């Protein structure tokens, strides 16, 4: 039987993939399980295996081509079969990318062109989307669909709470203004800077990588749909630095690896979340999901963006185990070798810009989490000592950005107080 190979969905946020390399040539024999191609997703480059035996009859797309998930990329034929007449069927692939680069250049005013380019489909304004970004059909009741149209709500951004995840009227009613596109016709704002200056001489137009697109979409969703609030503290990092020196001296003597300042901070973040479990949660339409485990996301800067691999059940891990798994995950994140399950399902994120000398900042929440902790650099500063004398202190700035639908100011403050306690009395976190 003739079997088309389609672009596989290799992560929950993957909507399109780039065929980096064909590992089987046209005419090659293929068996189930053979690696036939390498696919770059939004997060990693992965090997794609054959699901059918036969001969790889045709590469329907060339190396370096980006296509939507589900589009045909190749054809496998059984013995003695010939290709179906309708074989080349990639026409529908990624129309957005093909059209986008040409238009802004010719536009007199950047804005309309940018909007056009960013419109997901050249559809009529009133037509509601039938698919989510990931290609899945949207399950929505007829009444909810009508309601969404009346209110101008983009149903692809609404989470369904009905049976089987169906969007029902209550979900539309509770959809926050952030999920509302000003008018149904308005372009999906993810990739649409309002006034993109047209590329002039010497300027470059850099097409979005899969990762950059996901970052743009997720953080825009976060900042526009989650009511953020921000708290900041400065803690005394002296005791932590002292303990770290002791631990590492002992560790080094035993031939072990060094524990970083960040490892200590992560451990404190986890320990504080156990004390104040209300922050380890997500907002889910008509309910708050309170997580049993602290699955800690660690923001890792990579070549053209960032990924947030997850240390699972982090509350059960020792300082050393945390240190080792972060090192492992970060290393593989940089070489794009993370498996999808390794960057999914986090409940709290920590972003540390201390190594860049940033003293304090407020990060954007990594949805659907309710909180992100921003860690700055440890800086020597004059501080007022217990007897009103000025002493040299080692200070660490920590920011908390929280989803006010889930976490109130007092709860956030309580969490930071716990965090301060663990960092300023770091032996507590080793208990």
């Amino acid at each position, binding site marked *: 039987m003739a079997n088309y190979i389609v672009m596989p969905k290799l992560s929950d946020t993957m909507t399109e993939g780039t065929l980096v390399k064909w590992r089987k040539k046209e005419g090659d024999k293929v068996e189930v399980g053979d690696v036939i191609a390498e696919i770059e997703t939004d997060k990693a480059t992965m090997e794609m295996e054959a699901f059918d035996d036969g001969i790889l009859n045709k590469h329907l797309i060339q190396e370096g081509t980006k296509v939507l998930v589900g589009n045909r990329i190749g054809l496998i034929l059984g013995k003695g079969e010939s290709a179906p007449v309708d074989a080349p069927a990639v026409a529908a692939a990624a129309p957005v990318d093909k059209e986008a680069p040409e238009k802004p250049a010719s536009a007199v005013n950047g804005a309309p062109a940018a909007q056009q380019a960013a419109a997901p489909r050249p559809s009529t304004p009133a037509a509601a989307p039938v698919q989510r970004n990931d290609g899945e059909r949207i399950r929505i*009741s*007829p*009444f909810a669909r*009508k309601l969404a149209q009346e209110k101008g709500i983009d149903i692809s951004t609404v989470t369904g709470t*009905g*049976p089987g995840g*169906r969007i*029902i*009227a209550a979900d539309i009613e509770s959809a926050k203004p952030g999920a509302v596109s000003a008018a149904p016709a308005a372009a999906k704002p993810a990739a649409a800077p309002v006034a993109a200056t047209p590329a002039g001489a010497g300027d470059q137009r850099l097409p979005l990588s899969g990762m950059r697109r996901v970052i743009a979409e997720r953080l825009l969703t976060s900042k526009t749909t989650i009511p953020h609030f921000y708290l900041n503290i400065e803690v005394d990092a002296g005791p932590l630095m002292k303990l770290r020196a002791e631990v590492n001296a002992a560790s080094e003597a035993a031939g072990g690896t060094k524990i970083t300042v960040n490892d200590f901070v992560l451990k404190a973040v986890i320990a504080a979340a156990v004390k104040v479990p209300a922050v380890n949660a997500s907002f889910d339409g008509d309910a708050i999901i309170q997580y049993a485990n602290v699955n800690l996301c660690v923001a890792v800067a990579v070549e053209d963006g960032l990924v947030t691999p997850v240390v699972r059940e982090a509350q059960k891990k020792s300082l050393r185990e945390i240190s080792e798994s972060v090192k492992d995950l970060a290393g593989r994140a940089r070489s794009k070798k993370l498996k999808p399950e390794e960057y999914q399902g986090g409940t709290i994120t920590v972003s540390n810009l201390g190594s860049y000398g940033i003293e304090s900042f407020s990060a954007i929440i990594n949805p659907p989490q309710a909180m992100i902790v921003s860690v700055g650099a440890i800086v020597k500063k004059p501080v007022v000592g217990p007897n009103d004398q000025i002493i040299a202190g080692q200070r660490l700035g920590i920011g908390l950005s929280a989803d006010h639908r889930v976490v109130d100011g007092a709860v956030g403050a309580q969490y930071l107080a716990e965090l301060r306690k663990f960092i300023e009395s770091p032996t507590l976190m080793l208990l």
Partner: protein
Amino acid sequence: MPEITYREAIRHALAEELERDENVVVIGEEVAEYDGAYKVTEGLWKRFGDKRIVDTPISEAAFIGMGVGASMLGLRPVMELMFWSFATVAWDQIINNAGFVRYMSGGLINCPIVIRGPANGGTGVGATHSHTPENMLANIPGLKVVCPATAYDAKGLLKTAIRDNDPVMFLESTLLYGNLGEVPTEEYLIPLGVADVKREGTDITLIAHGGAVLTALKAAELLAAEHDISAEVVDLRSIRPLDEETILKSVRKTHRAVLIEENKPFCGVGAQISSMLMQKAFDDLDAPVLRISAIDAPAIYSPHLEAKQLPRPTDVIAKVLSIC
């Protein structure tokens, strides 16, 4: 307002119409001297005599045929079937004669007959005595079908049925005969084709007829008490003509509907209404329309099993919770 039984309400309707119009006659097995198999016609023979209250042999085909003929000539016979189950032997008389004579005669002959009797399961009388043929009857263009759930409705609807100039099938329930309900002493009529909202609600519409209305009301009560769900109960009262307006108005308010009937599921009344809702209320639905009916088997003889065969309030609640 005095409370009387459903049985008495029917009897009062008969008596009032017998009194009002000398063309009204009551005909059936044991309706006269024995006072009726279920005592609905009790006392009528003594009061109105042999010419108005007529006993017949056990011969449905014959006496229904006779009633159809009499109605063509100007009488207004009210025929009692001991069970609607026995209508099958008079099917030709009911459908081809009563149902179609107006059409077949080009409108020259009409047939102001009422055929009434109990049509319900749940009493352990077995498959051949437990038919609920309202869906079969309603399938015939030319027949009107009425299924009252309360004493008030039974009286008002029967009086209207007797005055109707076309054949009206009036389906009662032996399980409802003893139920008390408030019925005014002054005369009233309930038009055919007007449903009644028996309980107001905002979250879901329960649509039922006959005995299932009481099941729906009980379920609605429990849904409010235990699940904080406000169910509206629409009693169809007549299956044909069907009051689409009231059904649609309710569903457009609640956006959900569950259809309950004691009939069998296949091609049941609920199937007809859910199809109508698909066509006319599609954009108002927030959940699929669900149906509850008897389990699809002949009425089960064992009372324990039969009790499970028919829709219970718990069945309604489970269905409602699956979409609320």
